[in-house]
């Protein structure tokens, strides 16, 4: 097939990608937008396969088939609560693909590449491999698989990272002067892989969504850089689209947390992780689900604040049942969804939607905060940092400045938690010790089911 036709097909794909990104910013058009993006990708793939450059088909078919099976199986079987990890993992695979393509091209060109080829290959290898290992670590930290979700810090961390980056950059500059030393791309890739790990490891699980969005942007830039190496317009355009839109999305996410990106990426580095144990904890008042049920059914306005604990316990259906019973008793039920409740923005919305909670009952932070004063009870299920008043007044707190849900303004606050253990931020919540607070200890699903049973009597 004529290369020009293939290039034009990349233009068509790029137009569809632009439509896709635009459409996915609005709930009405989002799903169609995703479909448009998929069609664009299909066009790019089909026309690329028509390229005269492609000679050996068996390998390609094997790769496509294996990838489709694995990707499809993962996407369709994964639990909704693991969505963030999946995005991280898929992103990692994209970075891996870019990183591998660069290496393949370097080996193919051998020492005959020119300076432009060598330098762009070095840059592409750097971005691609950082994205791959960084995404893997992000996945592992969210999944709590082999790595803790807490920030991992070690002495001289900033210096080490900077040194590694400087060496990698130096190697790339060297490649510019001596393009014949094409194998230098290998140590660049190796350094990049280490950097990816070190870059993500000091970031706590709660901030991981922002990091994933940033890594998503990087995987786009990796594709674009590979496009520079191959001279492929499709890669450059689509990669740049994703790279840029990813940066904007990352900024939007940071703004929702009222923190700067630098703060998210580097806050833990150089600090010792604060532990909640150590100082004397005042006693808390512990109650049973039956007590909670009594408070709830005698309320006129109840505001439910869901958090990650609800997701882990898969309590959303029990919560819906409880809310329905309360509504039958004449109680007004609303949900206060904090922008970063759960593991990702929109996480709670997805879970509650799965349980068929009516959309009108879900309120975002600005809508629900004025209502807490009128609320007889705020039921906090598996959420912690998003309701911690330390964010308002404690300048030393890692969450200082983050907008929170004002549950302490409600007449009574009930926490459904497994224990007094801190949430992702690793800090204690002074709200637990308030006189208006009732702690209901236990797994969120078990507790809520207990409340449902008590309500039914």
């Amino acid at each position: 097939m004529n290369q020009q036709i293939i290039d034009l097909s990349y233009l068509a794909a790029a137009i569809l990608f632009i439509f896709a990104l635009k459409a996915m910013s609005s709930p009405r058009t989002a799903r169609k937008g995703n479909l448009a993006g998929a069609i664009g990708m299909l066009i790019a793939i089909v026309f690329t396969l028509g390229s005269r450059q492609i000679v050996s088909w068996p390998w390609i078919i094997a790769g496509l088939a294996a990838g489709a099976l694995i990707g499809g199986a993962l996407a369709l079987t994964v639990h909704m609560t693991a969505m963030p990890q999946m995005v991280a993992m898929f992103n990692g695979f994209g970075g891996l693909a870019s990183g591998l393509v660069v290496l393949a091209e370097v080996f193919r060109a051998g020492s005959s590449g020119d300076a432009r080829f060598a330098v762009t290959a070095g840059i592409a290898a750097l971005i691609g491999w950082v994205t791959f290992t960084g995404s893997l670590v992000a996945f592992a930290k969210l999944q709590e698989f082999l790595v803790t979700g807490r920030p991992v810090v070690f002495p001289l961390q900033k210096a080490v990272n900077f040194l590694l980056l400087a060496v990698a950059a130096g190697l790339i500059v060297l490649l510019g002067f001596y393009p014949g030393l094409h194998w230098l791309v290998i140590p660049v890739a190796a350094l990049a892989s280490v950097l990816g790990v070190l870059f993500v490891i000091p970031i706590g699980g709660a901030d991981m969504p922002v990091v994933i969005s940033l890594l998503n942007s990087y995987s786009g830039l990796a594709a674009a850089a590979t496009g520079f190496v191959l001279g492929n317009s499709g890669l450059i355009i689509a990669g740049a689209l994703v790279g840029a839109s990813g940066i904007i999305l990352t900024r939007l996410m940071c703004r929702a947390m009222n923190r700067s990106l630098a703060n998210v990426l580097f806050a833990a580095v150089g600090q010792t992780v604060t532990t909640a144990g150590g100082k004397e904890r005042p006693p808390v008042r512990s109650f049973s689900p039956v007590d909670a049920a009594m408070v709830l059914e005698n309320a006129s306005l109840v505001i439910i604040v869901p958090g990650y604990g609800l997701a882990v316990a898969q309590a959303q259906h029990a919560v819906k049942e409880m809310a329905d019973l309360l509504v039958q008793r004449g109680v007004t039920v609303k949900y206060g969804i904090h922008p970063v409740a759960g593991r990702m923005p929109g996480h709670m919305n997805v879970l509650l939607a799965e349980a068929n909670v009516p959309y009108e009952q879900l309120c975002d932070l600005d809508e629900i905060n004025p209502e807490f004063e009128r609320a007889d009870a705020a039921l906090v299920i598996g959420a912690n940092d998003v309701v911690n008043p330390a964010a308002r007044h404690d300048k030393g707190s890692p969450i200082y400045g983050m907008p929170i849900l004002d549950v302490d303004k409600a007449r009574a606050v009930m926490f459904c938690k497994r224990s007094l253990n801190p949430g992702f931020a690793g800090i204690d919540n002074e709200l637990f010790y308030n006189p208006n607070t009732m702690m209901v200890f236990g797994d969120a699903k078990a507790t809520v089911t207990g409340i449902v049973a008590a309500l039914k009597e």
Partner: protein
Amino acid sequence: MNEAVPALLAAADEAASSPMPLTFAVIIFVLAMFVGLEVITKVPTTLHTPLMSGSNAISGITIIGALLAAGLGGRLGAVIGTLAVTAATINVVGGYLVTDRMLRMFTRKRD
């Protein structure tokens, strides 16, 4: 006239297949970045996650680089290229399906 046509096509093809000038690559890169910056302006918080997943699927465009690497022949290139094709396909297929699953939750609510 008839003999000229294939010669013209061959010449055009030859010109098209010569390496992309660096300036041209930079131009389309910068322009595409601007489009990306402009297209994402207002996103409701609920859509942050699906949008991230959807744009992640688009970053699977790296698959076309992988296809070219795998298809070009040469032993090492073929092996590495096939791994790259597999990885990129996981990104693409998994990415679009996962995004669709997330978005399905929102459209159901709207009914």
